[in-house]
């Protein structure tokens, strides 16, 4: 497994290259990449704050749970902080498993937990000002399926 909490931009394609590949026990690899979206055409940047120390600790616990629950061959989580441009990658999850259903479920589990249980906070910076992104009830609800 690999976990990286970083300020630097990354290339999801380069990260996926070789992930879970060339081994006889992996039948499926799933990846999710989150990107900075601008719904209103006014977003200048997304600023992400996090809790150094707790972030890595919380993500490690989630990934370890996913690996044991879905018997993953490998798992990857990259999450950025700092100032991010529109269209840039925010974070990425990848899972490798014997079967596709396990790889999909584990990736969705990690996404749901990263959304609501990893200590990141997003702030939208627009020409009109800055505002903290509110957590959605639906994201908290999503945890109940696991």
């Amino acid at each position, binding site marked *: 497994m690999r976990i990286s909490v970083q300020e630097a931009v990354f290339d999801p394609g380069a990260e996926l290259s070789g992930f879970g590949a060339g081994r006889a026990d992996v039948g499926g690899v799933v990846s999710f990449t989150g990107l900075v979206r601008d719904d209103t055409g006014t977003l200048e940047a997304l600023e992400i*704050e*996090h*809790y150094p120390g707790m972030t890595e600790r*919380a993500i490690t616990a989630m990934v370890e749970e996913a690996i044991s629950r879905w018997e993953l061959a490998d798992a990857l989580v990259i999450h950025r902080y700092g100032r991010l441009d529109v269209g840039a990658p925010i974070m990425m999850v990848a899972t490798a498993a014997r079967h596709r259903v396990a790889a999909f479920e584990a990736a969705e589990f990690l996404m749901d937990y990263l959304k609501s249980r990893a200590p990141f*906070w997003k702030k939208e910076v627009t020409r009109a000002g800055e505002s*903290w992104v*509110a957590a959605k009830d639906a994201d908290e609800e999503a945890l109940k399926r696991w």
Partner: protein
Amino acid sequence: MVDLLYFAWLRERVGVARESVETSAVSVADLVEELKARDPRYAAAFADTSVVRVALDQDLADFSAPLAGVKEIAFFPPMTGG
């Protein structure tokens, strides 16, 4: 002495990211009451604790959790990662 950390809008309302305080509060809830009584900045930050989350030594906890032995207490809004 215990370290208090604040993130996102809690940090902005309290006005500091980190501070060390002397407290005899036995629970997170007690500590929050102590802080609110101390200064309007804390009263503003903790006005609605339903939107405040707490971590004790980097593990998520409830407001009823005891503080004995805890070195680092962090307050922050619901997380918005991913």
